[in-house]
């Protein structure tokens, strides 16, 4: 729903036509097929590189650096919460299970060898923790058939999990989504184009540079400026008291 709202907002601003099925620039038109090929290629490259950085953070954490593990927590706790909310409907319980999952992952981190991606390993721990939690509460998992280990093994960032919408999606999430949408709609066109092609379409910097006909360095700068502009609007909602920061 949020995704659709984003697209609608962007469509209203004249940026995205026909729900991103075609994006036209003065000299380039990306058809859906070629676009999808580029997206898949870019996503695969991105996942590979993210895995390498994740692995670096894991190795630092294995050597005793808790802040490295904190970066992994910051990166993945929202995705894990989203996944587990398919099994546990109560949001407070989901948060407890997410927390317990990360603690278990930290305790077992010495056994992680990097044979699979860190997030695959983490999600597997999360699902098992959720199942154990439900059993301990004497409850049958409500939508257990929807989330199994096989799903996690096939799960990559940005796949079908995003379509799930729980009844208890937090007000805060909705408020933040609205803030992000409004901030994107207010961006200058070149920043809005760059951040949208990157985040919604998953294009690599090289592909975005081809589409926008500018150097890769310009793409990097535009995406960064777009993020900073959005983040400036977000921070009042996200910031926690100084003493609670890790």
């Amino acid at each position: 729903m949020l995704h659709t709202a984003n697209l609608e907002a962007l469509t209203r601003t004249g940026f995205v036509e026909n729900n991103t099925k075609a994006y036209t620039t003065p000299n380039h038109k990306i058809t859906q097929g070629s676009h999808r090929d580029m997206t898949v290629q870019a996503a695969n490259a991105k996942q590979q590189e993210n895995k390498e950085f994740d692995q670096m953070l894991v190795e630092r954490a294995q050597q005793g650096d808790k802040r490295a593990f904190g970066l992994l927590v910051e990166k993945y706790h929202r995705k894990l919460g989203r996944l587990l909310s398919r099994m546990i409907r109560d949001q407070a319980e989901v948060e407890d299970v997410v927390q317990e999952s990360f603690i278990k992952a930290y305790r077992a981190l010495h056994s992680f060898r990097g044979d699979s991606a860190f997030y695959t390993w983490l999600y597997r721990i999360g699902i098992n923790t959720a199942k154990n939690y439900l059993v301990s509460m004497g409850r049958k998992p409500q939508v257990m058939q929807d989330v199994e280990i096989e799903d996690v093994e096939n799960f990559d960032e940005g796949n079908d999990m995003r379509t799930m919408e729980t009844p208890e999606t937090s007000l805060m999430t909705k408020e933040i989504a609205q803030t992000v949408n409004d901030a994107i709609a207010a961006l200058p066109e070149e920043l809005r184009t760059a951040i949208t092609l990157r985040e919604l379409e998953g294009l690599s910097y090289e592909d975005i540079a081809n589409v926008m006909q500018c150097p890769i360095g310009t793409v990097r700068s535009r995406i960064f400026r777009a993020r900073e502009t959005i983040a400036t609007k977000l921070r009042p909602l996200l910031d926690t008291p100084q003493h609670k920061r890790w």
Partner: protein
Amino acid sequence: MKQQLSALVDGEVDIERCEHIFLAAKSSGEVAQAWRDYHVIRDVLREEGWVQSDMTSRIMAQLADEPTMLAPQAVAASEKISHIRPRFSKYTWSIAASVAAAFFVGLFVVNQPEVTAPAQIADNDADTDQYVLAHHNYAPNSATYYMHNVAYNAGE
């Protein structure tokens, strides 16, 4: 630095430069905050997660009570490669030695001169027939076929 972090979030930074950005994220609250903000923006745009502002703080507070992990057996990827090579080399030599030994043994067996079947020699040897006949009572039960063979030959 935050621009490099932004590129890192997109997987557009060489892994060699990640160490520098990682150290900055550790030492600078502003960079760490940007790491959070950029991922929140991504998760919201892609609908990949819900936002709970204090979740990281909660988890890290609990982790502070956990004993610090020290896993000396964990090695970097580059070190793994250097460790794998000598092991691979050792196994390669072992396999090569086994194959060479099997080859020479096989060569020796193939080049052996053909021998006549021992049973045919025994059939033609009258002394052996008599010996077996005389001692068949000492043979185990499973060897009773000697009796039939000898009796047949004796009857001829």
